[in-house]
């Protein structure tokens, strides 16, 4: 079973709960959840993807995941590109390394519904759950 996500209620903003059997799949599911808050994001397939390497260090795996998601937001906002495939090279409590294929956003086929300002630290969690792992985060709209 691959990772999945759902939204949960927050008065002003949007909460995302992602879960997956493995940590790499959780990273994927959390990214999918973040993109789903923004809207329906369709990558342009005509041009080749560009692989980027992300590395985050710290002492809290939930914060490392948040940092990765913040990077996805920044790329979307400044480069108008989305991550279309990832390979999680390392995910420990102190380091997250992700190789990510990025592609330009196909603006004609995408539907941008919400401007996500940031992935907040409020109620940020990553924990083992039945059958794998679960992460929750709240995004500022």
């Amino acid at each position, binding site marked *: 079973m691959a990772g999945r996500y759902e939204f949960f209620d927050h*008065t002003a903003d949007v909460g995302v709960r992602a879960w997956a059997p493995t940590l790499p799949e959780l990273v994927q599911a959390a990214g999918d959840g973040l993109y789903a808050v923004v809207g329906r994001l369709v990558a342009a397939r005509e041009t080749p993807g560009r692989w980027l390497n992300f590395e985050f260090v710290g002492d809290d795996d939930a914060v490392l995941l948040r940092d990765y998601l913040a990077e996805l937001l920044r790329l979307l906002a400044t480069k108008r590109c989305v991550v279309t495939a990832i390979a999680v090279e390392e995910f420990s409590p102190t380091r997250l390394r992700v190789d990510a294929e990025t592609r330009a956003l196909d603006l004609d086929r995408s539907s*941008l519904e919400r*401007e996500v*300002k940031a992935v907040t630290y409020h109620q940020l969690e990553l924990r083992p759950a039945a059958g794998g792992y679960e992460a929750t985060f709240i995004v500022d709209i």
Partner: protein
Amino acid sequence: MPEAFTGPLEQVDECRWRIPRSYKPGMRTDGLIYADETLMKTIRQDKSPEQVANVACLPGIVGASLAMPDIHWGYGFCIGGVAATDPEEGGVISPGGVGYDINCGVRLVRTDIPASDAQPRLRKLVDTLFATVPCGVGGTGKVRFSKKELQELVVAGSRYVVERGFGCDEDVERTEGNGCLEGARPEHVSDHAYERGYDQVGTLGSGNHFVEVQVVEEVVDPRAADVLGLKPGYIAVTIHSGSRGFGYQICEDALRDLREVPKKYGIELPDRQLVCAPVHSAEGQRYLGAMRAAANYAWCNRQILMHLVRQVFEQVFDQPADQLGMHLVYDVAHNIAKLEPYQVAGRMRKLCVHRKGATRAFPAGHPEVPEVYRSIGQPVLVPGDMGRTSWVLVGQLKAMEETFGSCCHGAGRLLSRSAAIRAAKGRSIEKELAAAGVVARARGRTGLAEEQPDAYKDVSQVVEVVQRAGISKKVARLRPIGVIKG
């Protein structure tokens, strides 16, 4: 549903509720929420009172951790929160007490256009605003600035864009702090922030940001309304936006930079989003320098947005903006931190006042109030939802005594975004608004549903509380007739 607050809320009087300092370990002071019994029933339904208690844990906090009646659940601070800290007593600055949208705020433009003249052209007016004002997710502006120009802009504030033709001196005089927070440090702003903000000056954004065409429906204080130039039955325009991606990235960078700082200074925090640094520390000064740059960016953003609105009115009414009487009434920030002097326990102290979803509300006679308004007090602009009403108030002396010169900033959300979408299922919010006499245009499919009137508290109830508490006074009520949203 969000989890309800189950802690103590002691009623002090008809519009004040206390969370005692004894509620949880780490609280250095009481929490104090302004609300009546009706509003308190909804306030208890989420975790916002818990956030008021959390803010009471910040080092150097002076007075109570305050919340205005439009309080709702935020992240770190509640929305509607006010907290003052004393830098000389180890007081901190917390980016979470300002928020990601640094200097999100509101400006109000008055006109000499009778509503009866506007009604026949309303659809054209709203459509032209929608076509002219850049809005929507990641919308880019028609005015571009190089990095060097942006660095000058964020130091100078509103005057920078006025000197380039986007307004007049009077606009600057009628903007909080003359549209400039002194002490901006462009060198403390990351390249990522410049990259995210270089093409967004003069853009509305999305979410709850809007341009609204309104009619002055009721004047409560004729003398003050006359000074502000608000006449019953005439058109006004409200603009709500902030510092766009530039500010979001500055807050993001600050929260990352400050992660280890509480440990360094021995500060215990109940929520990671409350990360902070002593105001006088190098880390605190670094954030303040960048935050002020974002505040100045936001004032330039709203100045250019107003310029575009004036151009649209000139086109639709075929008259110059000054002949249409399109003067800025005032521009207020409602997400900001400022160093302001207050008399506390018989001593004048310069405090760091965080307003997270709260508006400055200085009284008559205060030197920071523009001379033209000094006899009535600073205008406090309180937009409601797009179907009902908005209010113009003026600050009162009591605000200086109780709330560090602060007041509410809006209606406050009642429904989550998901709940609002569920409530809109099978309905057309656009048609419902049209039936109520409001022409609405929005970019996204979900925008109008998420921002529908039922998603918000009744702003008149909120305003009633601040008036009864004596921190602001009603001047005029505005009714929306046209709105554009991102």
